[in-house]
């Protein structure tokens, strides 16, 4: 178990040693986002904006225009909400080479409550032209994704989590922007998942196997661009899709998959996620249960969809 934000902080330091153009910004949350690890080693390339997310993003734009590769971090709710228009105008519109790495995405933020749990950030960021939107599943994939976006020339929004999550990828997993990762073969239905819901889906697939149901698990760490070929192939080959994300069912992964399937190969879809509601205080596990994001809920969704096939 490792939190994706921990993998992020460590990988930033590694990148900082390799490339003097890497700069990091934060908005008074460097202990939580783990950018403090970079600050400790490269104080001259670390810029705390204070509690001023809009200015942080503007500074990132200027650093990028000045030839640096800035990574700007804060909680997902502030990055995608408070600083949205700065991300739109100062980063995405000019297609600048800056990365927004937003930690504390989704409801597993836990006790801080609904004000701090972003359930809409993927939808917001996905709607922006030029923007790449990523949501890795675990520590190893986060490390690979951070390296991949540092090497990619353009704006990126990457969502990470607060909670420790199971490791489901090999340590040396590769990450390619726009590429899905087939984690488990299956023929009866496909779980299309992102973030920590991928681990939940792998567990659900094991339970289903005992019931004689063969569930495929297709991890979509790259929500935009989406691996359209892999999504369509899975729909053709399994005939039913359950999407799962720690996010509203509106506009995020479920929305993206439905757009592709509606146009390319319509099959029954169940979207697992928050049903157009905000979160609340509680432990991460309690909240996952309360909002229907456990392996048991995915099994139920699979059983429902098999009846619709």
């Amino acid at each position, binding site marked *: 178990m490792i939190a994706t934000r921990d993998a992020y902080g460590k990988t930033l330091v590694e990148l900082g040693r390799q490339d003097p153009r890497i*700069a990091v910004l934060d908005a008074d949350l460097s202990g939580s986002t783990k950018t403090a690890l970079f600050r400790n080693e490269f104080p*001259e*390339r670390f*810029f705390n*904006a*204070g509690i*001023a997310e*809009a*200015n942080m*993003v*503007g*500074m*990132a*734009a*200027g*650093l*990028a*225009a*000045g*030839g*640096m590769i*800035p990574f700007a971090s804060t909680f997902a709710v502030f990055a995608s909400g408070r600083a949205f*228009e*700065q991300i739109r*105008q*100062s980063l995405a*519109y*000019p*297609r600048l080479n800056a990365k927004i790495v937003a930690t504390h995405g989704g409801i597993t933020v836990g006790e801080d409550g609904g004000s701090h749990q972003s359930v809409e950030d993927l939808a917001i960021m996905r709607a922006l032209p030029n923007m790449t939107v990523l949501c890795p599943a675990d520590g190893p994939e986060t490390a690979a994704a951070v390296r991949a976006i540092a090497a990619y020339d353009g704006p990126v929004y990457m969502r990470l989590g607060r909670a420790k999550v199971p490791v489901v990828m090999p340590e040396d997993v590769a990450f390619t922007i726009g590429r899905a990762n087939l984690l488990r073969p299956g023929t009866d239905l496909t779980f299309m998942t992102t973030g920590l819901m991928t681990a939940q889906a792998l567990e659900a697939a094991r339970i289903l196997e005992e019931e004689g149901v063969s569930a495929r698990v297709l991890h979509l760490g790259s929500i935009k661009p989406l691996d359209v070929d892999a999504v369509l192939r899975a729909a053709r080959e399994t005939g039913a899709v359950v999407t799962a994300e720690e996010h509203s069912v509106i506009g995020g992964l479920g929305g993206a998959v439905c757009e592709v399937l509606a146009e390319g190969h319509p099959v029954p879809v169940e979207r697992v996620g928050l049903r157009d509601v905000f979160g609340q205080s509680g432990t991460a596990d309690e909240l996952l249960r309360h909002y229907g994001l456990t392996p048991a809920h995915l099994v139920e969704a699979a059983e429902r969809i098999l009846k619709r096939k």
Partner: protein
Amino acid sequence: MVNDLDVRELEDAARRLRVEVLKMLNMAKSGHTGGSLSAIDVLTALYFHKMRHDPSNPAWPERDRFVLSKGHAAPALYACLAKAGYFPTEDLKTLRRLGSHLQGHPDMRKTPGVEVCTGSLGQGLSQSVGLALAARVAGRRSRTYCLLGDGEVQEGQVWEAAMAAAHYGLDNLCALLDWNGLQIDGEVDNVMKVAPLAPKFLGFGWQVLEVDGHDMQAICRALDESEQTGGRPTMIIARTVKGKGVPFFEHKASYHGVPPSDDELGRALEHLGHS
């Protein structure tokens, strides 16, 4: 230091640039006249007196950077860039047309010489802070200049950036404020008072210089002075007149976002000694 001849040449350049601004706005049939004319003297001093830049090599790493945070004054910027040689003056006729590299607001991906994208007010000073930090990290002696509108400083982000510039001791950053006193809905004092401005920026830790924004010699002196600040960013508050140079446009908020008609253009050019 500027000698009198330089100042006279700059004044003459600013007069010609006003002509270009009015002609391109008249052809485009939309755009921001008042704020382009109030800013043109300051822009002229920057592009033809102060900044180190090379129009034949817009990507020269050591160049000084200019950010037009009040992006709606794009016509004034475009006139300067064309005169400097970044692109042919002929291109100014395509302002705001489909497919033109001269967008309604400045676009770094389309126009040679434009450093960032601006136009959504309040964001340029933050970008300038980033540019100044990048120059510092890379050990470049490039300076960053940023022109703000007075209505624009109603945006809270400007003050976030003002805090950051002072916090990081950015003496390679010089902002200028085009204080023409008018915004779209009327007088800045009535819409949302921003005065007094000098004490605000002083309180934020900036060096503040106040000049008549249409006195070329004073502008140039202030720009020179901005290079000796001892670890502080500089704010040059330029008192200006909206629509400056064309008497029937001056002091009128109604010409904020209105281009000159054919008749107004004729009379304006006559007034500017250009027929």
